[in-house]
């Protein structure tokens, strides 16, 4: 039913003598929520940063919609329709909500170098969009500094949703949130998928992975050591796979392919 949205093939990346990725491979299917789990230092962040253009892999392939891509900057990934919500959210605290939503994609009017930003249009669009997402909506003119943790997260995710043309990557989307806010963010992620986007989420929270995702990939020591449909594993099994107590559940792409 679902096409493969992103394929990662044997990705390697070293920093000096440290091999952060030692040949990682995984698939992300379109219209699903896919999780990457793994202990600290397993290579999750490095893999994500290769997918978002912040790092350039040393070798290996990334295919988006079946076409090989090589991202050299965040703009490249963006042009391929992939938006990222970083763990630190990448928000500018002293800018307003709408300014953050439109950062680097401001609406302008005018000719050539004499372009004026359309502040009102951006404000209205931002307000409309946040109201649609209907999650704990902060006023769009408020500075991000004055938002709660959940609201900040909502703004960062809303920015991803608003610009994504196919896929959103979420790095630890609820790590800093309380229970209520976590539930709201999870609801938001589900809504995003209903709208036809593909979601790749990095999470430490196995309950969340069980609740939220369709497919899960386990990383350990710079490799993807296992992948399975989420419904087929228990939380304990995931923990075992992450720690290495259960060496490998399936061949990396076995059950994931069906």
């Amino acid at each position: 039913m679902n096409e493969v949205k992103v394929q990662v093939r044997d990705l390697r990346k070293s920093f000096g003598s440290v091999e952060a990725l030692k040949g990682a491979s995984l698939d992300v299917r379109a219209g699903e929520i896919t999780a990457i789990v793994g202990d600290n230092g397993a290579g999750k962040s490095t893999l994500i940063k290769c997918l978002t253009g912040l790092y350039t892999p040393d070798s290996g392939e990334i295919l988006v919609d079946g076409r090989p891509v090589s991202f050299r900057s965040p703009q490249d990934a963006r042009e391929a329709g992939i938006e990222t919500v970083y763990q630190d959210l990448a928000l500018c605290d002293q800018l307003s909500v709408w300014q953050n939503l439109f950062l680097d994609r401001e609406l302008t009017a005018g000719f050539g170098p004499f372009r004026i930003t359309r502040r009102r249009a951006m404000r209205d669009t931002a307000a409309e969009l946040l109201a649609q997402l209907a999650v704990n909506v902060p006023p769009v003119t408020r500075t991000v500094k004055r938002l709660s943790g959940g609201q900040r997260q909502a703004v960062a995710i809303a920015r991803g949703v608003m610009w994504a043309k196919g896929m959103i990557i979420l790095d630890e989307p609820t790590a800093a949130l309380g229970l209520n806010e976590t539930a709201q963010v999870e609801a938001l992620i589900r809504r995003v998928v209903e709208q036809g986007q593909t979601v790749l989420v990095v999470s430490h929270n196995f309950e969340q992975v069980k609740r939220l995702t369709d497919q899960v990939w386990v990383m350990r020591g710079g490799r993807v050591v296992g992948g399975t449909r989420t419904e087929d594993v228990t939380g304990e099994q995931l923990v075992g796979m992450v720690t290495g107590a259960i060496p490998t559940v399936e061949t990396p792409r076995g059950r994931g392919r069906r």
Partner: protein
Amino acid sequence: MTTTRPHPSVEAGAARSDRLREALRRIGTEEVWTKLTAPVALVLLIIVFSILKPRFISWPSITTMLADSTIPIVLALGATFAVTLAGIDLSLAATVALGSVTMATAHQAGLPLVLCCIVALATGLVVGALNGTFVGWVRIPDFIVSLGSLSLVMGLCLIISDGKPVIISEPVLTAISTQGMGGIRFNFLIAIAIAIVLHVVLFHTRFGTHLLAVGDNPDAATAMGLRVPRIKLAGYMICGLMGGIGAIMLTSYIGSSQPATNTDYLLKAIAAVVLGGVSLFGGRATIYGPVLGAILLTFLQSGLTLLGVDAFYSPLVIGIVVIAAATLMRGRK
């Protein structure tokens, strides 16, 4: 492991929201303070000096003081762009000196006045580009870069001019700082026009938003695809350009080039920026704030002179005002 989790996180959530509310209240008042410091202090200062010396508030006195505030305003506007980037440009006052020297050299070579002015502006842009390149791409701290360029520019001034001022007698140039409309001199009007343009640049263009974003959080700006080094370069070039404009204003005011750096200008520019509520940590700025700050400092200096206070006390007073203003706005970010 999993069943005990809800309770601590609920409590942590409640404690966090309490602390958040408290923090919000404090930030709210602080934001008001930073915005109101310059205007309120200016009004108070005018009232106090008017009571002590009614002559202070006379129209000729006010227009003279506004004309005197021209160079501080222009330099404060330049410094605002460096400070908004969470940086600083210590070479700003030296750039003014170098601009006046290159302008005089162009004048001696027989170039028409307009070209001489362009030479001064280009000098400022080059110094700004040098600072911006080293801050943006080579990633040396702004303080060190501009300290280096301060010395470099001062040296160039002395080498090019041989340490001697050159008289530039151009009626049009002199008219800028002696003539005016309704008593308000052209140099002040030009400074206000520049301030309006820079306000539009900072708050109504993409570049302005990006400048604030880079000053606020360079990592977030990079992640969102902004080209941080380029934006820093542009910010420092605007700062340098203001140094060039300051050079033209100074030459117009004095009627000759000024090879010796007047560090008082740098001090005043930074002081005006701080008084104007621009965050020294970057990302938050206004244009009217530094303008009012520069006017405030000039009025303060003139008022003290009018009261018969020795000119030697003026740096002392400015220093106190700056530290007091910075204390008011402490704990930002």
